[in-house]
Structure formats: structure tokens, C-alpha cells
């Protein structure tokens, strides 16, 4: 039986961690992810987990310690945000290339310049090519569920890649919402144990990890890693199917909301989806064929599936909560547009950068986007492809 509770996204993650009882948790505090290790420290203090909990001196070291622990044969976790994720950046790539399935919880927060503690995806999306799988969530329930699926995806023998469970800083990490938790025993049975085939502490067979890879070998390692990311697509769906069989909640690469006959659609990620869905419902009542795609899996990017979902639309707006400074839009737009490039009949597509540093996203703002899409659909005129929304003029 599910347990009805109410809690924040951070507590939901910490709860999932407690239920999973990882071997090693290496922590370093940064807003707004700090509560995750704080809750966990209390679980350690109260004997509710028997995790080795180490308080390191930086995020670079927290992920490095996780790599040491994973290579040694353990399940290792950590959490961070913003500058902390940037500081880890070098080690993120090492994690991917060493094929060590660390699970990293990210309470997504703007990167500094100016310093800001609120939500956008400039931290996690800057790390999009690091070799981590990335799962995003609309609310605390999805964060919790993603976390329960995370280890099984990351540790699958065909994948063996690190994984980020992303939540929206403050909006999801701190807001208290209703949630359905699963029983500890059922969670442990679903997640299972981590028992890698080879590891540093294995008695029978010493292991060497992290070689110097000269040109004659480097590319093979990278191609194998790329294949693992492709394999992750299949595994993500398999784990989601098993999750649904166990707990009844259904997940895929993305959620298609009222997309069946949609002529205009938005593509976005995270908590903004709740706001945009309210707008879609309003528009549907007035006869506008509006729909929404909420991306859950950014890495691996589900390009084929997304193109299939968008192919019948006349006009699509991609909403990026990250300014990529490419001068032609953010990462979600670039990836969505490239996913659609080989469609015989493509929707017109615009890019809107919004919500940076916690700037509010409202139903009115969503409506203005759909109004633009209606004009594009009816006239065929795109106008400016790449714009910003919600800033002072």
C-alpha cells in the first residue's frame, strides 16, 4: 500500500535514499540541495541507515569520493546544485568515462553572474554532454519516483553510466506537496542490490581503473560509452514498465499532454509543466487545439520519439530555462529542432528563453506563447525565432 504523505522534493529524495540505504554518501552543502544530506545525516544519527556518510571539503571531492567508492564495489550517492555542479564538472566526465553508476541528485539552480539561488537549468544543462543520464521532474512525486528508478537504470549491465535526478530548485526542492511514498521493503525489493562484476576490493581479481588512453584506444572507449547511452533508452523504458507494474505510476521519455490532435504545442521541462497544463486546459475549452510535451529524459535525448510526437503540429514553441549563449537559443531548442530535421513535414518552431534565476512563469505567460503559435500556424510567418520572455524591457 502506498503511504500518503506530504513533503518537499528534497525530503522526498532523502526518503528514497533512506529506503535504498546506499553504501556511501559523500556530501558538500550548497543551496538549495543542502537539505538532502541534512535529512540523511539525521537518518544516520538515528541508525535508520548504515551508510558510510562522509562530509568532504568540496563538490569536486564529493563526486571524486563517490567514484572511489563505486569503483571499490559500492553504491555511492551525492547531491548538489549550481556552482557545486560546475565545480564537479571535470569529475562528471570522469564518472561517465569510467562507467561508474553514481546517482547524483541535482536541485537545479541558476549559475552565478549575478549570483542567484533560484531555479533554472543553467547548471544541469551545462552538464548535458558529461555522460550522465538526466531525469527531470514536474513535482515531488516525480522526483521520488525518478529516484527509485535511478539506480536500476544507471547500474544496468548494458548501461553502467552515472545519472542525475533533477528537481527544480526551491519550486520543487522546498515546496511541500502531497506525495505517495512506497513501503521500505517494496522499494528495497524493487531497487535491489548493487553487485558489480569487477571492483577494486574484489579479492579474486585486482582491477585497474582509469588508464591513460592513447589515440589507438581512446575512440573505442568513447564509442562504447556512446553505445551505453543509446542502450539507456531501452533500459529506461524497461525500468519504467516494471515500476508501473509495482507501483502503478506510469513514466516514459516525456509526457504528452493533450497532444492527440494538437496543432500547436509547447515543449518544456519541470515544474512549469503544471502551469502550462492549466493553460492548455483553458485553451481546449475554448476550442484551441493546444498540447504540451514535458520532457522527462534529457539524456539520452529521445529525438525520434519526440519528432514523432511533434510531426503533426503546425507550430511548436520550445521553452528553455537556460540561456545557452549560442545566439540562437538554449539547449532544449537546439536538440528538439535537430530531432525534427529529417521529418518530411516539419512544424514551424520557435525558441523562448524564460524563467532564468527563478523568474516567474504564469498561466498568462503560457497563454501568450500559445497565441503566438496560433498566429504562426495561421499565417505561416514565424517572425523572430529566438526570444526571451518575462524580462523587463
Amino acid at each position, binding site marked *: 500500500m502506498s503511504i500518503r504523505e506530504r513533503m518537499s522534493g528534497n525530503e522526498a529524495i532523502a526518503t528514497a535514499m533512506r529506503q535504498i540505504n546506499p*553504501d*556511501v554518501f559523500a556530501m558538500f552543502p550548497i543551496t538549495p540541495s543542502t537539505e538532502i544530506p541534512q535529512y540523511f545525516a539525521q537518518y544516520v544519527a538515528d541508525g535508520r541507515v548504515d551508510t558510510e556518510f562522509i562530509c568532504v571539503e568540496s563538490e569536486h*571531492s*564529493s563526486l571524486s*569520493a563517490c567514484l*572511489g567508492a563505486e*569503483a*571499490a564495489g559500492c553504491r555511492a550517492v551525492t547531491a548538489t546544485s549550481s556552482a557545486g555542479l560546475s565545480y564537479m564538472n571535470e569529475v562528471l566526465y570522469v564518472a561517465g568515462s569510467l562507467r561508474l553508476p553514481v546517482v547524483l541528485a541535482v536541485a537545479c539552480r541558476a549559475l552565478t553572474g549575478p549570483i542567484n539561488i533560484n531555479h533554472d537549468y543553467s547548471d544541469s544543462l551545462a552538464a548535458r554532454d558529461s555522460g550522465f543520464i538526466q531525469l527531470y521532474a514536474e513535482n515531488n512525486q516525480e522526483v521520488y519516483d525518478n529516484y527509485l528508478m535511478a539506480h536500476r537504470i544507471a547500474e544496468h549491465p548494458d548501461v553502467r553510466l552515472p545519472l542525475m535526478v533533477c528537481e527544480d530548485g526551491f519550486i520543487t526542492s522546498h515546496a511541500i506537496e502531497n506525495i505517495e511514498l512506497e513501503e521500505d521493503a517494496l522499494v528495497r525489493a524493487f531497487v535491489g542490490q548493487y553487485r558489480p562484476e569487477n571492483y577494486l*576490493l574484489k579479492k579474486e581479481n585486482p582491477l585497474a581503473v582509469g588508464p591513460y588512453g592513447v589515440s589507438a584506444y581512446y575512440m573505442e572507449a568513447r564509442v562504447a560509452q556512446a553505445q551505453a547511452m543509446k542502450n539507456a533508452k531501452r533500459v529506461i523504458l524497461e525500468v519504467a514498465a516494471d515500476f508501473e507494474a509495482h507501483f502503478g505510476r506510469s513514466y516514459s521519455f516525456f509526457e504528452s499532454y493533450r497532444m492527440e490532435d494538437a496543432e500547436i504545442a509547447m515543449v518544456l521541462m519541470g515544474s512549469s509543466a503544471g502551469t502550462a497544463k492549466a493553460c492548455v486546459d483553458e485553451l481546449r475549452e475554448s476550442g484551441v487545439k493546444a498540447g504540451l510535451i514535458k520532457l522527462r529524459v534529457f539524456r539520452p535525448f529521445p529525438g525520434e520519439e519526440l519528432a514523432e510526437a511533434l510531426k503533426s503540429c503546425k507550430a511548436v514553441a520550445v521553452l528553455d530555462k537556460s540561456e545557452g549563449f549560442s545566439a540562437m537559443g538554449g539547449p532544449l531548442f537546439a536538440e528538439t529542432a535537430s530531432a525534427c530535421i529529417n521529418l518530411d513535414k516539419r512544424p514551424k518552431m520557435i525558441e523562448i528563453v524564460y524563467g532564468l534565476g527563478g523568474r516567474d512563469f504564469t498561466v498568462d505567460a503560457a497563454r501568450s506563447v500559445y497565441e503566438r503559435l496560433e498566429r504562426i500556424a495561421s499565417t505561416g510567418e514565424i517572425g523572430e525565432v529566438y526570444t526571451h520572455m518575462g524580462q523587463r524591457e
Partner: protein
Amino acid sequence: MAYNLKEEMNKEERFHSGHRLCAGCGAGIVCRAMMRAVDPEDRAVICNATGCLEVSSFQYPYTAWEDSYIHTAFENASATASGVEAAYRVMKRKGRLAEDEHVKILAIGGDGGTYDIGFQSLSGAFERGHDFTYFCYDNNAYMNTGTQRSSATPRFASATTTPAGTESVGKKQVQKDLTRIMVAHGSPYVAQTTLFGTMKDFHEKAHRAIYTEGPTFVNVLTPCPRGWQYPADELIDICKAAIDTCVWPLYEVVDGEYRLTYEPKKKLPVEEFMSKQGRFRHCFKPGNEWTIEAAQEYVDRKWEELLALCK
């Protein structure tokens, strides 16, 4: 048990030949001796910082290491070792490793990966008290990238980023005294050694460090023929000159108590150390005599300080 070189050399090698370190490099000698200091019945995990040693000893698909080995990056050998040590403890606690199994966790890095970029990670791991031993093979500069100065480079050494020239007599600053900084962390065992004689001094310190519970540190002066500019066969002579001039005094600190482990019968002038190496060649040019005097003054002062600590 008394140190016996023959018995030590009869042990099975745990750092094999075939690695790609230069002829006359001290790092390979450090690794062989470090692994001889792990009792044959015990296993080890070596956590190596990026550097000459890493690229020379584990070039895919070959490894010189008999024991388990991990390299992740340059500045995080101590953090990686912290994770391995945490894993070791939790796996024992959860019954996934037998109680009577002993795995020694060793970290090793050059002076760049230890004194400089790896210092935060090193300091953090020592403050937390992980049970591991850190070996620094201190060759006084960033050798893997071509002899750039580090905080371990001695004053007046010509490095590629502090070259001697018409307006320069090499590096301006004295080296960081990392050994004493590690003592200040409250480590139960810290030692300085180098490569000479029968390797008795190295072996005894390495063994004691490895078999002392908690974070322990061994700083090994490890000449580099490329950076220090000496003929490969003079490696051991240079180490001997370093200890006989007191440029690199041999001592250990047990629970905060300093103990000198070697006192030269006759303390030699610093020229004996400097003149053997091309990196100090400019110091012997007419008009630069003052550099040798200044180097001598610094060595004398540090030596007196150490003697006072050892009283």
C-alpha cells in the same frame, strides 16, 4: 624484525618493469619500495593522481601494478582514496568483505598533485581521518608537462616557467614545507625520506606509515633526470647529497613527536647538492655567488628549526 635487503628483494614484485618511466627517474623506485612495504599477505588499492607516474604505469591495455589501482584526475587522489576507504569500511560492516581481510589504501601523487592542485583534497582527507597513507614523490616541479615550477620547487631552481636568464636567477620563492603542514593536521605519522643506500630508511617509514591507523603521510624527495638535469646513473648520489647537505633532512613525526632519523657525520655545503644538477647551473656563474650563500642560509635556518623540534 630487522631490515634485510636480500629478503626484501626476494619478495614478489608488485610494481613491474615495462612501465614507461624515464631511465634515472626516482618514481619507479618509490613505487617498488612502497609496494614492498605492504606485507605480502595484505592487498592494496593504489589511488594515483594524474602525472608522469599515472601515464607511465597504466597505459591501456597494460598496467605495471599487481594490486588494484585507480586514477580519476589530477587534484583528487585523496578524495578518491577517501571513497575507497569508505567503501572498505562499509563493505566490512555489511559483511561483503571478510573480517580477516586486510586491504591497505595508498594514495600517490607528485608534488604538483600534492603540494598544489591536490592540496585541498589532501587536507580534507587528513582532517576527516581516513585510514590511508599518502606518498608524495616530490620531484620539485610539474615534470609531466615539462618542468614548470610548483610550490615544491626550491629557490633558485631554473624551471620552464621560472627560467634563469639575464634578469633571473630561477625561482624566487622557497619551497612550501608540506611535511610540517601535514604534521599540523594532527596525523599520527608523518615522515620525510628519499632514495639511498639499502632503502632501509624508506622501507621502515613506509611500513610504519602504512601500518599506522589513520591518515599518514610520507614525503619522498624523488629526483627527475629531465627536470633536474643530471645523468641517469647519478640518481642515488643526488639523493645522498640532499640528505648530507640537509637540503632534505630525514625525520619522522609520531603523534606530534619529531625524531631525526639521519644526522650527517659532516654536514656538507649546499654546493654539493646544487652542483650536480643543471637546474642550478646559473648559480655558479660569476656574480651569482650570493644565490649559493642565500640557499645555504635557508638550509641552515630550516635545519636548526628541525633540530629544535627534534629535541
